[in-house]
């Protein structure tokens, strides 16, 4: 059996032998030459030389590789020991592998999202996202072009600041129109990110504002590959976007998907490629740009924020009317940037990683228990080795090595498992209308993470019991027979400690998962204020297919007519926004006669809807009227507000007939109705004021048809699609799904949390219960003799039962008490993620404690029962 193909070692050994051999030969030759017989010469030479093996051994030590050989020997010994007890080895390896995999999986998700916020970009640690005004979850683009220009040109703390805005568009010109996510970007976009083109070039500074006769476009790698068949000569060619000819000037390298974490951009054009968006480019109140800056080397985020704040303050002073409300600038590193997915990730994944770490600790405690029991039963072996001259360090080293060997195998298994589980992250996100690109990644960081955690785990499971076991004085152990208790009181204390630790660690896991599960149920049960069943939604690419406004209006009319006439359709309407899909449209609104508090945000959410929208979604109109088809471009602009807006802006007054100015809209809106509140983004959001505009006045650019059906909405999907395609086959129809399915996006993070926490808690429960069972059973077995004696002198079975149960319950009690304290401290961190339930919800806490208590009781009862049923005579005989 060769475990170590020690390089060169064999050869050097052979050479040494040969060298000594030569020595002897020469000595013999000399003696023979002097006249001795061959036989006596041989003997004399050998005598003179001394112990050949010893010389070899001492010489080998001089090579310096001795420690290597020593380790090889120790490793072989450890593996042999592990092979001797396959049950222990397999159990421990499997448990460790699962626990390490739990950690590495969550870490691979963090690695793939938070740690790689902008794939392909250089030094993402220096990038910060800029946010203006109130900090909130999923903010809308915060900057206007002119403000962005001022910040970019006047700051002293950034090497570059980029801006972008992205949306869907249709690629025309090919056989089949195709929807793609396009970004309008500042000319320095790729420079600031530090990305070089794979083909052609990126934008030049002078192209940023100057609309070319034929706009330039940069293609993303995957689009170039799929739609343009990896054409190597594509640079300079003309393609068609929304029926406009554009020239391809470059292709981005593989893997580059844009600057917003978790979102995939397919192609890039300049900010105003057609010169048709003059208004957006020239107005300081048109906030449409997301902005990311690269800090100068040595500049801290705080200094940069101060620098920009000063600039922003000057801008606000110069243009106060365009900057009402809060204008403070905050900077976020990309791993927790609120723009894109990382805001959500940063709120969820680190907590899950902490849970996974607790699972790993728990597993270590469990494996340490097993190891300790194993060492106790091997204490004679250790004692013998000690008396033969092994020192304590060597013994401990040997035992630790066994733990490390286990954990290395477990780490390898975890590595294989993780390469599969890391890609499961995408499963948690239901079909949705965003070009989401979220998944775990498996790179060197994950591998290092696995290596570190498995080594630490191995040390923990090996070292602790090893140190304890090596304490036992050799003479005592050799003298004592197994009757002398389970390896001394010290081991017993460590065993108890480990059991207590397992219970104390699993309790918070269980409580947190209980809270998450109940949160998920509360979210599902919550009434969002609108109808989710029997609604089908479908997006129609009217705006992205390049129709003129009049054509589009006509098409929309036709769609509504045809879809409404379909059998099984009750009501149909248009909207440009679907609630609870993580999309938001926000504007600053100034209600007439309302004086905002200092620093009050005037942001409102907005949606453009047609007549019968509220009827479709079953949102009751509380006052006034709904939109009618007559509320079109020619009619005065009208608005329907929700209760939150009405109460906030016109408390105690009749909101009907009140006027409201919205930043970026040229007209004054008049309120014609009030509707009941409904959920906008998350069930657990704090309600923000909402205004509904008439679709035909201010709707778009998205066009989504909403259909209320009689039966299952999904059954009607083909019919609706057909009806639309009958109008124009080139009309892209996409994201056809039921409202139920669309709104699942809002709870996807709650699903992730409860699914993982639940899984971790289950592992924790199993480990804790098997842990306490193992220890109580083991100890009871060790005390078989004692119990036999007790019964022989008159203890009843109930006494025995009580004896065994009590010791188990003691441990459980202490573990539960500690765990409870631990849990109460821990749940504060997840309070933000809960809905409809307190962080210390007594029902959850009590039921979890009862569950864990009951399981532990059962785990103690089984060995107790067995001890009780023993025949005292056989028990005494059994030593």
């Amino acid at each position, binding site marked *: 059996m060769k475990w170590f193909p020690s390089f060169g070692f064999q050869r050097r050994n052979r050479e*040494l032998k040969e*060298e*000594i051999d030569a*020595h002897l030969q*020469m000595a013999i*030759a000399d003696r023979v030459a002097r006249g001795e017989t061959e036989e006596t010469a041989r003997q004399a030479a050998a005598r003179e030389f*001394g112990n050949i093996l010893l010389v070899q051994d*001492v*010489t080998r030590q001089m*090579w310096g590789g001795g420690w290597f050989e020593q380790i090889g020997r120790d490793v072989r010994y450890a593996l042999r020991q592990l092979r001797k007890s396959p049950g222990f080895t397999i159990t421990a390896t499997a448990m460790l592998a699962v626990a390490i995999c739990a950690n590495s999986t969550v870490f691979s998700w963090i690695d793939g999202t938070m740690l790689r916020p902008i794939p392909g970009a250089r030094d993402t640690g220096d990038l910060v996202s800029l946010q203006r005004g109130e900090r909130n979850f999923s903010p809308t683009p915060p900057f206007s072009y002119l403000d962005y220009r001022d910040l970019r040109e006047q700051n002293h703390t950034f090497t570059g600041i980029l801006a972008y805005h992205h949306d869907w568009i249709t690629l025309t010109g090919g056989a089949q129109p195709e929807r793609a996510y396009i970004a309008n970007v500042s000319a320095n976009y790729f420079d600031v990110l530090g990305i070089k083109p794979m083909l052609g070039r990126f934008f030049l500074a002078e192209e940023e504002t100057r609309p070319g006769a034929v706009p330039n476009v940069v293609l993303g790698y995957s689009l170039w590959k799929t739609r343009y068949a990896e054409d190597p000569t594509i640079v300079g060619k003309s393609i068609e976007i929304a029926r406009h000819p554009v020239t391809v000037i470059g292709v981005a390298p593989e893997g580059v998907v844009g600057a917003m974490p978790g979102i995939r951009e397919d192609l890039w054009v300049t900010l105003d490629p057609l010169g048709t968006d003059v208004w957006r480019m020239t107005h300081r109140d048109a906030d449409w740009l997301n902005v990311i800056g690269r800090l100068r080397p040595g500049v801290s985020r705080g200094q940069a924020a101060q620098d920009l704040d000063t600039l922003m303050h000057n801008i606000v002073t110069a243009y106060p009317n365009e900057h009402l409300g809060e204008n403070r600038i905050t900077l976020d590193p990309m791993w927790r940037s609120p723009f894109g997915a990382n805001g959500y990730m940063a709120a969820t994944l680190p907590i899950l990683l902490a849970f996974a770490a607790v699972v790993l600790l728990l597993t270590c405690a469990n494996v340490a228990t097993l190891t300790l029991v194993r060492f106790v039963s091997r204490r004679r072996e250790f004692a013998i080795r000690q008396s033969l001259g092994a020192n304590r360090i060597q013994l401990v080293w040997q035992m630790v090595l066994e733990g490390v060997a286990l954990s290395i195998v477990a780490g390898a298994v975890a590595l294989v498992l993780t390469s599969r589980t890391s890609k499961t992250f995408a499963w948690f996100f239901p079909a949705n209308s965003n070009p989401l690109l979220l998944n775990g990644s498996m790179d060197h960081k994950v591998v290092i993470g696995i290596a570190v955690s498995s080594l630490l785990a191995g040390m923990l499971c090996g070292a602790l019991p090893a140190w304890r076991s090596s304490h036992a004085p050799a003479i005592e152990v050799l003298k004592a027979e197994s009757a002398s208790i389970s390896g001394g009181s010290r081991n017993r204390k460590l065993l108890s400690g480990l059991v207590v630790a397992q219970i104390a660690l699993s309790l918070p896991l269980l409580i947190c998962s209980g809270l998450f599960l109940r949160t998920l149920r509360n979210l599902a049960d919550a009434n969002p204020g609108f109808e989710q069943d029997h609604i089908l939604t479908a997006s129609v690419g009217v705006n992205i297919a390049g129709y003129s406004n009049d054509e589009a209006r006509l098409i929309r009319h036709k769609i509504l007519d045809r879809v409404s006439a379909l059998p099984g359709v009750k009501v149909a309407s248009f909207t440009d926004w679907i609630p609870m899909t993580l999309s938001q449209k926000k504007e600053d609104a100034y209600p007439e006669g309302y004086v905002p508090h200092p620093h009050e945000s005037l942001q409102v959410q907005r949606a453009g809807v047609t007549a019968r929208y509220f009827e479709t979604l079953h949102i009751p109109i509380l006052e006034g009227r709904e939109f009618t088809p007559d509320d079109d471009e020619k009619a005065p602009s009208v608005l329907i507000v929700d209760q939150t807006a009405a109460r906030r802006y016109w408390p105690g007054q009749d909101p009907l007939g009140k006027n409201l100015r919205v930043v970026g809209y040229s007209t004054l809106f008049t309120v014609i109705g009030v509707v009941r509140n409904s959920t906008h983004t998350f069930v657990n959001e704090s309600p923000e004021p909402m205004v509904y505009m008439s679709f035909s006045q201010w709707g778009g650019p998205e066009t989504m048809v909403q259909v209320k059906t009689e039966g299952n909405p999904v059954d009607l999907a083909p019919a609706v699609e057909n009806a639309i395609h009958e109008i124009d086959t080139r009309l892209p129809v996409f994201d056809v799904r039921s409202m139920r399915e669309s709104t699942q996006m809002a709870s996807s993070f709650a699903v992730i949390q409860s699914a993982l926490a639940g899984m971790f808690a289950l592992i924790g429960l199993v480990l804790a219960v098997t842990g306490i069972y193992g220890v109580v059973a083991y100890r009871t077995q060790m005390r078989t003799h004692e119990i036999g004696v007790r019964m022989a002198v008159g203890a009843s079975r109930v006494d025995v039962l009580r004896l065994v149960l009590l010791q188990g319950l003691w441990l459980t009690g202490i573990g539960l008490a500690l765990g409870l304290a631990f849990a109460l401290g821990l749940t504060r961190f997840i309070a933000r993620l809960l809905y409809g339930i307190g962080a210390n919800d007594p029902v959850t806490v009590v039921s979890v404690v009862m569950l864990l208590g009951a399981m532990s009781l059962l785990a103690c009862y089984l060995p107790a029962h067995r001890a009780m049923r023993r025949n005292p005579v056989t028990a005494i005989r059994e030593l």
Partner: protein
Amino acid sequence: MLILQTLQWGPQHGYGIVQALRLRSGDVLQVETGSLYPALHRLERQRWVQSEWKQSESKQRARYYRITAKGKKQLASDLDRWEQIVEAIGSVMYVKPEESAS
């Protein structure tokens, strides 16, 4: 030091070193093979000697050791130290009586 000195006279194999030392010291110094080979291998690891396999005069394949430049430097410094020690010991052993009395 003695081994290095022996190798100063030319490359030599282990057996030759033993013989050479015995010869030069007039049979006073008997090098134990038990310490010779470990010492040679240690010197090689320290790069003070180099070794190669060669045929000896008697057609016996043997490993020849050769002193390196580094080894010569080491030998010189060892020799220095040795002389210092000899001198120091000498001056202790042969002290004049009046000096020891004071």
